[in-house]
């Protein structure tokens, strides 16, 4: 069963509906025990990095999430669930993340582009993760964010996207997949990614 971690933020419902649409067995929970028993973890979320970490901590969810990832369970992070994999974020001073991957989360530079980066943008595949096997290169996905990740290890980079600068829009390592864009809001192509994640779990 896929478990969507409910830490009191973000639009969990659309992620749940998305997985249901592709025929996955899915459950939304904030119960650490259910997370421990899950086959795969999904951490969605929009909002602030600091609040996300604080809520996870208050609900005693940090440990079960990290443990699941370390045990090799498939993990899908979306937006904040992608950013918090990294060491720290510049948002509100410095906030510590889960530190699964070394690197920082930084804000888009001040230039003439609008922030948040809100809307549809193309995703260029650098290293194709299995969950993107049905996705053609340079397709549009939906983004809403003001910060992006700077991984220390370039080997993590699955896709990149241009918005004034080129930033990392998806990372992937072994069982860990994380997107800056929102598959659950990206219509048919987004659902294909959720389906890809489901297939990956079935094979794992």
């Amino acid at each position, binding site marked *: 069963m896929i478990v969507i971690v409910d830490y009191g*933020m973000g*639009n969990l*419902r*659309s992620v749940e*509906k*998305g997985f249901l*649409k592709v025929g996955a067995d899915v459950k939304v929970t904030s119960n650490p025990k259910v997370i421990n028993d899950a086959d795969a973890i999904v951490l969605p979320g*929009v*909002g*602030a990095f600091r*609040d996300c970490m604080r809520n996870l901590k208050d609900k005693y969810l940090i440990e079960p999430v990290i443990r699941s990832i370390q045990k090799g369970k498939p993990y899908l992070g979306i937006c904040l669930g992608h950013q918090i994999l990294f060491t720290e974020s510049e948002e509100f001073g410095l906030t510590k993340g889960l530190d699964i991957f070394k690197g920082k989360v930084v804000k888009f530079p001040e230039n003439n582009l*609008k*922030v*948040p*980066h*809100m*809307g*549809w*943008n*193309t995703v260029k595949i650098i290293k194709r993760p299995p969950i993107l096997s049905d996705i053609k290169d*340079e397709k*549009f996905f*939906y983004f*809403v*964010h*003001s910060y992006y990740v700077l991984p220390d290890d370039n080997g993590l980079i699955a896709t990149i996207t*241009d*918005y004034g600068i080129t930033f990392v829009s998806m990372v992937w390592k072994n069982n860990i997949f994380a997107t800056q864009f929102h598959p*659950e*809001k*990206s*219509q*048919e192509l*987004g*659902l294909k990614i959720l389906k890809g994640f489901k297939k990956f779990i079935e094979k794992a």
Partner: protein
Amino acid sequence: MFAKRIIPCLDVKDGRVVKGVSFVNLRDAGDPVENAKFYDEQGADELIFLDITASHEKRKIILDVVMKTAEEVFMPLTVGGGIRTLNDIRDLLKSGCDKVSINTAAVKDPYFIARAAEKFGTQCIVVAIDAKRTYGSLPDATGEKWFDDKELKEVCLKIPERIPYNPPLHSPLARVDTDGLKMGREDLSEIERGVWAISTHGGRRIKLIDAIKWAKKIEQLGAGEIMLTSMDKDGTKDGYDIELTKAVSEAVRIPVIASGGAGKLEHLYEALKYGKADAVLAASIFHYREYTIREAKEYLKSRGISVRL
């Protein structure tokens, strides 16, 4: 490649889709979920439900509409209309919408924006500005006094050197050259050009706050996006207020959705190109199937606008 967004808007009353001209003469035009699916299939970039349900008891219906829609379509969904409290926002987000659009509650208490942004994140707080052109400098600079439309007219007419209230607009696109938009209005004084005040309660009340200053203020308070409607143009089908759109878009760093006045595909182009909007909202031209979203996008692409096709 970042795309400009095309956003159909559905006015929903008591759970049914309606669309009126300048907020009157509503016509019933269908089921919200069916409409949402239709636009999803056509490749709309987002969808906005504007809840115009008047009675308080019936306001919960929109939650059901949102819930059913979120089961069928997987695209960003915004709901506006009648949002007063943090609980209203929470209920809507929980039902499956991604952003909420606030107008009257934000004008009444601007710090509501800050509280909402802090609790739910700036990305889901859209502030709607319903702008109305007024002539002369705004008589009540503090913005504390409320005027209804009739009173405003009187206020404007009381100032003798001012040109009359709401004269026919110069066609803002009278002179367009390849460098961009020439309004043909640069030679007019600020008084003659007019300023935009903001209106609330679906256009029934005017508050004499400069819409441009208001846009900057709501950005500071944590709005993630501005939905900018020209109340002078809304329902006219003779084009967006390009001057207004450009002025607001250039004043803030958050995205601006232009709204009010779309009647032809060229109008969408003008708002994106000359008005510098990040997205365009339209209702009737899509709703009555005058054009499909795809036709609109193909047209825009042919004129060099980046869109998602």
